[in-house]
């Protein structure tokens, strides 16, 4: 007997996996042959990819529109400074440490911000980020308003530091994709897709929505903190207003919106589009940002699936086997009687 079966992989997704592994392998060899400038650029790309994946996880999958993720980037930056320069930990350990810091802070603030829904949740997370910024700004031990430089990293041989930063960025960038893919393949992912369709329906299926959302918020906090630490391993100079700036979140949002909200491929396409736009329009200065905002608005209104949505509407492909598709067995009529079509429209 052949009933309906649920499949997740597609032929395209298996091909994409091979292609993906090949490009990861290629990226891994860059320190051996790439220039310093190329590595710097790739660190920017990979960390932004990680941030965008985290924001997509929050907003696209869990419906948590945070505009306060810069809190975790700043915490990652300052955590890096504290653990490297003050606690004198060797280079990789601080990055692990800021991950734990991100987890702790997201757990600590979640009872507050989770009391707010939708757009008010967004501003609530923003206020939390502002509070952390102001506290850091008024803490002379971490440089107050002028900020700090991570001296231990400055003292490192440049080539060594660059290679280390690059490796970490590669791990963070690829890791973010792997984490999102694993989450979406898990039971939690199924719960989240249900949540996106209807919170009431998901709840009636016994999904603990609060815990699912909390878990996502936690993962995103860790991801953004780690990415923040790696970003500042490259920048070295940490200033509170920049590290806790809303620009970080604006950038993540832009990448996700233009790439495709709620699709794992979205941030990848979005990052490519973002850097392409930056290369071509950056000399316009503030007008460039006006254009970015305008593009985000019009994509949201006119092409809510983003670039990836436009691509897949023409060529139905899924690069990651995380969508569940129902394959119906032969000769199985489906009763298409609606539950209540005469109900209130």
């Amino acid at each position: 007997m052949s009933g309906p079966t649920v499949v997740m992989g597609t032929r395209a997704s298996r091909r994409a996996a091979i292609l993906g592994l090949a490009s990861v392998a290629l990226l891994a060899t860059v320190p051996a042959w790439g220039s310093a400038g190329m590595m710097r650029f790739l660190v920017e790309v990979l960390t932004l990819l990680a941030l965008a994946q985290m924001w997509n996880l929050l907003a696209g999958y869990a419906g948590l529109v945070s505009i306060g993720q810069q809190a975790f980037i700043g915490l990652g930056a300052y955590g890096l400074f504290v653990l490297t320069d003050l606690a004198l930990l060797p280079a990789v350990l601080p990055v692990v440490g800021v991950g734990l810091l991100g987890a702790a802070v997201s757990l600590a603030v979640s009872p507050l911000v989770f009391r707010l829904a939708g757009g008010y949740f967004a501003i609530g997370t923003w206020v939390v980020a502002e509070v952390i910024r102001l506290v850091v700004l008024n803490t002379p031990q971490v440089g107050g308003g002028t900020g700090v430089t991570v001296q231990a990293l400055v003292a490192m041989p440049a080539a060594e530091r660059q290679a280390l930063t690059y490796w970490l960025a590669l791990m963070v960038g690829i890791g973010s994709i792997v984490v999102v893919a694993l989450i979406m393949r898990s039971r939690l992912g199924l719960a989240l897709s249900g949540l996106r369709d209807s919170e009431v329906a998901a709840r009636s299926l016994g999904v603990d929505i609060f815990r699912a959302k909390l878990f996502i918020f936690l993962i995103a906090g860790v991801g953004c903190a780690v990415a923040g630490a790696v970003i500042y391993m490259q920048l070295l100079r940490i200033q509170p207003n920049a590290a806790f700036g809303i620009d970080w979140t604006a950038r993540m949002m832009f990448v996700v919106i233009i790439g495709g909200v709620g699709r794992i491929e979205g941030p990848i396409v979005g990052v490519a589009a973002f850097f392409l736009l930056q290369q071509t329009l950056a000399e316009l200065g503030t007008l460039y940002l006006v254009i970015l905002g305008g593009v985000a608005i019009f994509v949201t209104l006119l092409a809510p699936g983003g670039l990836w949505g436009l691509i897949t509407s023409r060529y139905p492909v899924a690069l990651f086997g995380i969508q569940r598709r129902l394959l119906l067995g032969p000769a199985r009529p489906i009763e298409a009687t609606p539950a209540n079509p005469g109900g209130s429209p």
Partner: protein
Amino acid sequence: MEWVNAVLQGALLGGVYALLATGLSLVFGVMRIVNLAQGDLTILAAFVAVSVVQLTGLGPIEALALVVPLMMGLGYVLQRGLLDHSLGRGVLPPVLVTFGLAIVIQNLLLSIYTADTRGLNAGAIETDSIRLSPEIAIGVLPLLTLIVAVAILVGLQLLLSRTGLGRALRATSDDAQTATLMGIDDRRMFAIAMAIALGTVAVAGVFLGIRTSFGPVDGPARLIFAFEAVIIGGLGSLWGTLIGGIMLGVAQGIGNQLGPAYPVLAGHLLFLLVLAFRPQGLFARRQERQS
């Protein structure tokens, strides 16, 4: 005595925060949109006032006669032309669209007016004060600000409770689809609500601009104050909003006494305390935050 003064100054400022909060909660109440661009629209109103003052030679308070209708018109057009299209597709589109709008406005202001801070000069009224005792004096301008704010809130309250338009707005807020069965054009109501909100916010923007200098990037702070006053006061009541605004102002006044770094932080902390211990707000009439 310094402390009494600080509390008093803060309380007087509360009226402006209440106006900002009213803009936010009116739009949320009718359209279920949290307008993330409201802070930048507040700053935009102040810059429009700068230009009106330059072009006409009017004082900033007189300039309101032009700024308010302009902002109301902008609100109407924004709602009809842009924000309407983000409705009915879940939580995400309105948030993304208003955030994108915030970025557009902020950077347009930067490219038109540069990053320099500006001020609005209302003349002698800024320094006049009424002495209550040898140590305590109330500035005429802050007092006027509070009176104007309260007058606007009373006006809005009357509009909503006594007029046909107010009833139609409240009906739309309750159930927009059923409102259309009464012959109410819900989209028009949305646009009117946005116009009223931006008119209200414009008054606050200009008075804040007279009080302190401002720059194109100060919008987010204005948005956060509005939001904090809404949450502190509780949704659903204009008077709760006024108390929320005044409490926020008082917290900032007290913070200011502690040091120049603390007024904003003190306001944030009051907000977080309310959120932690009384999330429905101090004066909530009914629970509707979990939209």
